[in-house]
């Protein structure tokens, strides 16, 4: 029964937040306007096409995509922390974010059409993780540590490459586009994004849910996990594939939104404890809520949208400290 209540809470809170968020935005719509659109859709009334467009084609996809991106980054971060037994790693640990950032910058320079940013960032995100794996193969030592190290190396190489691209980019239009993309935004959200980027995000997330208890066992260390009967290498590969798909899917549509994949898992740990059977679902829910809220603030705060990467850190930091004080790091 307690478990049922737990899942009801996990679904209800993001749903409520999404419902409230639909009323927020830059375009002045009254509460009544929004209700008119919503009831109009259900009852098939005629509604103001501008209002309809704003609610259904701008606000709603943005909220849905925000929830998916937040959930994907958080759940991947939680899975990586558990599997690498390191509370300081995040969803971008194996270089996905830097690789994706490089891919996006490259596409912005090479092509005029923004479309190419998505396949390039997604593809280079995967290539970065693959490179980590190849580096990990060079030694026979503890593979977890080599992978983490590989992530640091690949990440810094791609960061340097991003800097190089910024250096050579046209400062009038390409450079601002790259900088803005790297700070993360949901402003381009539409239903195509949700459908296409949603496939890797949802597939990865479902995969991680499926092995949530096995993550507990993996947290015991490779040697113990294997002696307990787990095929450690196979599970590690599976977790990395799932987390990489989810993160790359999220990053390619939203840009680099830092901090979520590191801190949301810790919020989850403070609230539910470290048992991944609860932590993984909790991270999905908290991550979704967190990014919905941050994106609401981003839309409301200034007339030109504040990039999400800035806000997640500015808001996440104090909130994290508050949680730390409130729970005193209990169960953590």
């Amino acid at each position: 029964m307690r478990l049922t209540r737990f899942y009801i809470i996990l679904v209800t809170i993001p749903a409520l937040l999404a419902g409230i968020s639909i009323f927020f935005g830059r375009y002045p719509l009254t509460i009544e306007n929004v209700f008119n659109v919503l009831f109009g859709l259900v009852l098939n009334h005629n509604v103001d096409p501008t209002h309809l467009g704003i609610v259904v084609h701008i606000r709603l996809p943005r909220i849905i995509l925000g929830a998916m991106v937040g959930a994907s980054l958080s759940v991947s971060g939680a899975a990586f922390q558990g599997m690498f037994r390191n509370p300081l790693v995040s969803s971008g640990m194996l270089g996905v974010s830097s690789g994706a950032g490089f891919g996006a910058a490259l596409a912005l320079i090479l092509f005029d059409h923004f479309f190419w940013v998505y396949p390039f960032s997604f593809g280079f995100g995967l290539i970065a993780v693959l490179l980590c794996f190849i580096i990990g193969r060079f030694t026979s030592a503890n593979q977890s540590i080599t992978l983490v190290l590989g992530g640091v190396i690949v990440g810094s190489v791609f960061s340097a490459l991003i800097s190089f691209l910024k250096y050579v980019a046209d400062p009038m239009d390409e450079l601002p586009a790259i900088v803005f993309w790297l700070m993360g935004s949901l402003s381009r959200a539409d239903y195509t994004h949700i459908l296409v980027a949603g496939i890797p995000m949802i597939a990865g997330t479902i995969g991680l849910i499926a092995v949530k208890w096995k993550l507990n066992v993996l947290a015991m260390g490779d040697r113990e996990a294997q002696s307990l009967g787990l095929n450690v290498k196979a599970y590690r590969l599976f977790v990395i594939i799932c987390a990489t798909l989810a993160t790359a899917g999220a990053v390619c549509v939203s840009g680099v939104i830092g901090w979520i994949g590191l801190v949301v898992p810790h919020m989850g740990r403070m609230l539910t404890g470290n048992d991944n059977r609860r932590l993984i679902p909790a991270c999905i829910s908290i991550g979704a809520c967190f990014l919905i809220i941050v994106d609401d603030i981003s839309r409301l705060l200034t007339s030109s949208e504040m990039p999400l990467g800035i806000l997640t850190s500015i808001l996440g930091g104090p909130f994290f400290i508050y949680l730390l004080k409130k729970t005193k790091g209990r169960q953590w």
Partner: protein
Amino acid sequence: MVTMTSLTLNNAGFSYGDTSIFKNITLEVHPGSTLCILGPNGSGKTTLMDALLGIHRLTHGSIYINGKDIRHLSPGQIARVLAFVPQNHAKHFSFSVRDVLLMGRSAYTHTFGSPGPKDLRIVDATLAQFNLSHLAHRDYTRLSGGETQLVMIIRALVQDTPIIVMDEPTAHLDFKHEITVLETIVRLIRNQGKTLIMATHFPNHAFFLENQGLDIEVGFLHREQLHMEGSPSDALTWENLRRYYGVDTCIMEYNTQKTGKIKQIFPISTTKEA
């Protein structure tokens, strides 16, 4: 437990690159027996344990479980026969003791599954059996070293295997907890009929088990070879301790009213070559 599971090593050898750790080990571990592997630190005991558990692949020879080469067994299949109690358990995340014990059921869960109510019942029953039910909801990172070791042993029991492999089960424990853990081990062998393979660098542990009236075989891992020397009384002689450990000792016997004759090794000095 009446399943007769045999473990056989045939000419087993392992080397890291050019460095040979052990070689030519041929041994049969009989069901219900206890094998105490003695040897100083760095003699290769842990590597031998890892080879038995299928974590390291032998570079020579083979290990058979019930006649099957462990090279052809999956981690899950091995884990249903051999449970492992580690020497140093590194704790990274605070799990409840119950959650840690549930991990003993890994080998019985589906690829994408979690343990179910039946597994939880096994955990709770095993805890109760050792009067440790009060630990169930405790944060295991806050347990003492001795309690942690007991939890690790109970996890091995939850794993429900005929054979338990222990690597230095009493390392880093205080005086009382060392005895508590040894007494628990005696219980496993006597009441549960487990086959036990225990690596230790304390020769007195073999005597402790023998003093409790158990049937123990002692093997010394020395210069890459495993020398089987029989029961503790036969094996732990001052000649052997001098040969394998380089320590001069005397073996003391003492009669107590409660337990009868007990034996202990007293170290005197390291062997000075004449």
